[in-house]
């Protein structure tokens, strides 16, 4: 969340999960723990009466899981099913609801202002994901190569700073920066590009890109620092050999750094892509989806439909589509991560 959710809220949930089935293999090679651990009960059958030991531990074990499962079920799984259910009804949130089948989904496809939010979300992937990860790769390798001392520590901390503040604050700060007479326009004026000045967040052509820059600002440090920890795990002898052969920064970057960081890149892509598709805070604070529909993302549209326009069914249908899309995008990235596991 890194939140996004570090944030982004979010981010907000930040994690790397689907490769978990693969967990034991990677962990064993990464951390050096023997993988030849037995699956079954660890205490030997001879010392504790078999049946009793198992029964006691499985019953008691379930009691241990129960509280977490109840909270998860009540406040995540139940609403999840309700979202699916609502999406099949027409409901204003107050009166009676009527079953409409798939009509809300059909309405989704026929309303450009709703479909466009999905396109906007995917455009944001460029800013939230592609730019921070590629720029982060370059930055991390530069820090690893030339700034091993104090400069490296300081830049690591500074770059990470946006990750710990609320995204709302990032939005307010950048709203100020990109407005008239904000720093960006002031800077353009100073270098003689006064013609370019505009209200960046209010202009149809630049609003989405302006929101995207805020995403770069928030996520660059997260990617850099994460990739840096990956570089620290690369065998140093590789670099020494390369340097003896006279390899420059770029040769080193292309031949050693990037290929070795597949796993970390996969994690970065996962976290940042979810942050992009599920953007809410930044857009809500800076543009509210405008001008027109230029920065409307699914999160904003769900909020508007459900709580301002009282079209709960339509909002839920959009929510279901968003959740399915996130899953569809994340799974291939997870595959990359798993193959890259060292």
């Amino acid at each position: 969340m890194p939140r996004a959710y570090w944030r982004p809220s979010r981010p907000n949930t930040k994690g790397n999960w689907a490769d978990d089935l693969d967990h034991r293999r990677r962990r064993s090679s990464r951390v050096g723990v023997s993988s030849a651990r037995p699956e079954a009960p660890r205490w030997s059958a001879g010392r504790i009466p078999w049946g009793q030991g198992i029964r006691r531990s499985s019953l008691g074990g379930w009691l241990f899981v129960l509280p977490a499962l109840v909270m998860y079920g009540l406040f995540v799984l139940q609403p999840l099913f309700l979202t699916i259910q609502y999406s099949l009804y027409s409901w204003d949130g107050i009166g009676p609801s009527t079953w409409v089948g798939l009509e809300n989904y059909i309405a989704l496809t026929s309303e450009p202002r709703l479909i466009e939010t999905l396109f906007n979300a995917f455009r944001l992937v460029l800013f939230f994901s592609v730019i921070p990860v590629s720029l982060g790769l370059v930055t991390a390798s530069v820090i690893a190569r030339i700034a091993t001392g104090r400069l490296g520590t300081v830049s690591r901390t500074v770059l990470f700073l946006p990750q710990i503040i609320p995204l709302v604050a990032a939005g307010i700060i950048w709203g100020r920066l990109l407005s008239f007479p904000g720093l960006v326009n002031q800077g353009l004026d100073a270098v003689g590009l006064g013609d370019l000045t505009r209200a960046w967040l209010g202009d149809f052509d630049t609003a989405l890109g302006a929101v995207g820059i805020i995403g770069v600002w928030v996520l660059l440090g997260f990617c850099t620092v994460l990739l840096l920890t990956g570089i620290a795990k690369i065998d140093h002898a590789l670099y020494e050999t390369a340097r003896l052969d006279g390899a420059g920064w770029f040769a080193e970057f292309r031949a050693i750094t990037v290929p070795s960081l597949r796993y970390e890149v996969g994690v970065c892509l996962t976290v940042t892509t979810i942050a992009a598709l599920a953007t809410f805070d930044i857009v809500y604070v800076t543009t509210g989806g405008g001008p027109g529909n230029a920065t409307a993302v699914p999160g904003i549209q769900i909020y508007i439909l459900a709580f301002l326009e009282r079209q709960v069914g339509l909002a839920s249908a959009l929510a279901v589509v968003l959740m399915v899309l996130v899953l569809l995008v994340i799974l291939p990235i997870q595959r990359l991560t798993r193959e890259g596991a060292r």
Partner: protein
Amino acid sequence: MRVARNELYAGRGLLVILMAFIVLPFLTIFVTALHPSGTVPAGLSWPAEPQWGNFVQAFEVANMSALLMSSMFIVLAVVPVALVISTMAGFAIGLLRVPGARWLLLLFVFGLTLPFEGIITPLYFLARQFGILNTRLAIVLPLIGLFMPFAVFWMRAHFANMPGEISEAARVDGASTWDLFWRVHVPLARAPIASLGILMSVWAWNQFLLALVLVEDPTQRTMAGALGAFQGHYATDIPLLCAGTILILLPTLILFVVFQRHVITALLQGSVKG
């Protein structure tokens, strides 16, 4: 190890530019906050007479002390409960390997991909139905649930890597499952529990969507939610808005600078752990 001189300068140049890109926005709102309230100052300009009083005014109009209390309350209500129940679940799934552990894990892990927006609408109607809408409980309870996928996943990763001999030895000594958990494994899991605690505190403090939808009164919200409301009221008074934003950021920034190493490590492990 030798690096060519011009490469050194180019690299340092890049880092300095990037750091400026990160820091300048903070600097802008700081100097803006010092301008007379109600004016619209340029991006970076030191005011003729710095208005330090803006911070005092923002502290009062934003009702900062109430906001701080509210956010603290939410963090203190969410994090300990979430820590205890996720540690228990992680222990049962990762170490006891209860029947169906694999499926339980998959069920929790699935929750990691859910955007909060996907379930916010039903959460609103559920909160209304439970009669907790517009109370802090409406943020606290869902937040505990929403933290479970990550928290359980995280704690399980720790317990799955504990050597079996420890549990075996305790069993031989006649320890019950609860003893094994509470006396043996929780003390050994202090480090991952602490990191998880830091992570969840930051996330709760910065949670915006739940606060926005489920609680109307800013003084009952999280810090991020309160900031959103503050922006709504004072969007036109830019210096005051900037002063308020700085005040709201200050606690997190101070904590970050003090615990910098721990926070970064925790946030990073949070995404790599698997």
